């Protein structure tokens, strides 16, 4: 069955079809939730909430946007809501250094050991640096970087205008960049002739 057919079937209450959709999206949804929340436990809960919202809301899903856009919206909103609730309860956000998920190896085209160590560090730092962003900035940046959505798709997904998406992503990147500079993570990554700053 195509995704469209699965969605139509699930809309009529076919939970088998819905299960196929969940299985197909679980990794992407979980990953987005993970980078929004910063730890595996919260991400797991948020991912479940997102899928349950999808199940309940399916009959209202009109198929004007793609299903993926819709589920990412539910996921990132569920994450933002979760983060807000946590803050109200007085718990800080945790981006755990011990979190294995953040440091997961990905197949690399055989870089040198030195290069490999550097890249690992930057990847870790980026994941940690996400916590320095507001949830709303994190949201657009992750939809762009993790889900590969275009600015237009993100605008439609979150009901924002294009200019807002563009500037939020730029500001999010800028904040992340400053975080990475402050934590000394760029110097090893760029050719040396560019690291001398002007003025």
């Amino acid at each position, binding site marked *: 069955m195509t995704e469209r057919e699965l969605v139509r079937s699930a809309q009529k*209450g076919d*939970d088998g079809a*819905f*299960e196929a959709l*969940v*299985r197909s999206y*679980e*990794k992407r949804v*979980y*990953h987005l939730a*993970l*980078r929004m929340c910063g730890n595996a436990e919260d991400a*797991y809960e948020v*991912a*479940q*909430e997102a*899928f*349950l*919202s999808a*199940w*309940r*809301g399916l009959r*209202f899903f009109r198929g004007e946007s793609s299903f993926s856009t819709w589920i990412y919206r539910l996921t990132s*909103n*569920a*994450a*933002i*809501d*979760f983060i*807000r*609730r946590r803050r109200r*309860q007085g718990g800080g956000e945790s981006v755990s250094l011990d979190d294995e*998920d953040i440091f*997961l190896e*990905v197949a690399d085209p055989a870089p040198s050991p030195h290069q490999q160590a550097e*890249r690992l560090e*930057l*990847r870790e730092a*980026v994941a940690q640096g996400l916590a320095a962003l507001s949830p709303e900035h994190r949201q657009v940046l992750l939809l*762009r*970087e*993790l889900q590969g959505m*275009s*600015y237009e798709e993100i605008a439609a997904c979150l009901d924002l205008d294009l200019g807002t998406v*563009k*500037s939020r*992503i*730029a500001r999010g*990147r*800028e904040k*992340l*960049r400053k975080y*990475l*500079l402050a934590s000394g993570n*760029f110097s090893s*990554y*760029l050719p040396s002739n*560019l690291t001398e*700053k*002007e003025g």
Partner: protein
Amino acid sequence: MEHCEKYAPLISAAVDGELCPAERRELMDHLAQCPACREIYGEMMAMHEAFSQLDAEVPGDLTGDVMAKVRTQKQVRKPRHAWWQIAAAAACCALVFLGYQHLQGGSPADQVAEATSGKAASYAVPMDENASQAVSEPSAAASAQSGTDSAVVSESTEEAAARDPENSTTAAADQEIMENVLTYFRSCAPRVSATMTGEAADEAQEEETGAVPCPTLSSSAPELEMWVIENIPAEGYSSDDATGARAWLITAEEYETLRDYLDQEGIPYTFDDAGDPAEGQETREMVCVVYLETEAES
């Protein structure tokens, strides 16, 4: 160095391949003369690449856990009542209401206005549980119709009852539905203590200070449920009884957006602002939204 800030959004868009040709030319011209911005560009590309290397394995059995909850919900969902049950319930409703009037004396409008005043807990009606459920169902259906016809907007239930005695039974029934929903809230999670009113709030005060009565928006329009599902990430709560009412806690900001949407589309709802926050308490952040499901829904 300051004027380079205007190029930061362009650089970011360049990383995403979202520049139009004119913007691209402008940026490239600038980068040709500006080492600082070239550095920024390099850093942003490095970040972009780092993102592409992020990955995560799903721990546990996410699909399994989700589907377990989905299937539980499917079972719990109560079947709709058959038409003959509704007719019987409507008859019950009339009898019960008359009975109440007889016991209390005074005009129906007065009693109901009193009954539906803010203190939900003091709404004491001598009905047994079955009758109270029966009252809710047809009245919810009636309120959906009257809601569409008279476009009751932004009034508290007491005002609605006083203004239009014919609809006062539906206002009373709505109040009761909300009370059922809020009871369910209470049993679900401590974090929703903000929604309790009256007696329940006093109990909760002992457990958690800062519990305040909650402004509440309610409607039978399916558009309400649809909007909430699409825009509100939090899981809502379903009423225990047969009415199928659902409720959610939303922020004041989300409420503004919802209200604008409902007003623009001419979708009827009622709003009870629950009075002012008590002295010393923060302004309430949360609004309770109640969707009163009705038989009219397709």
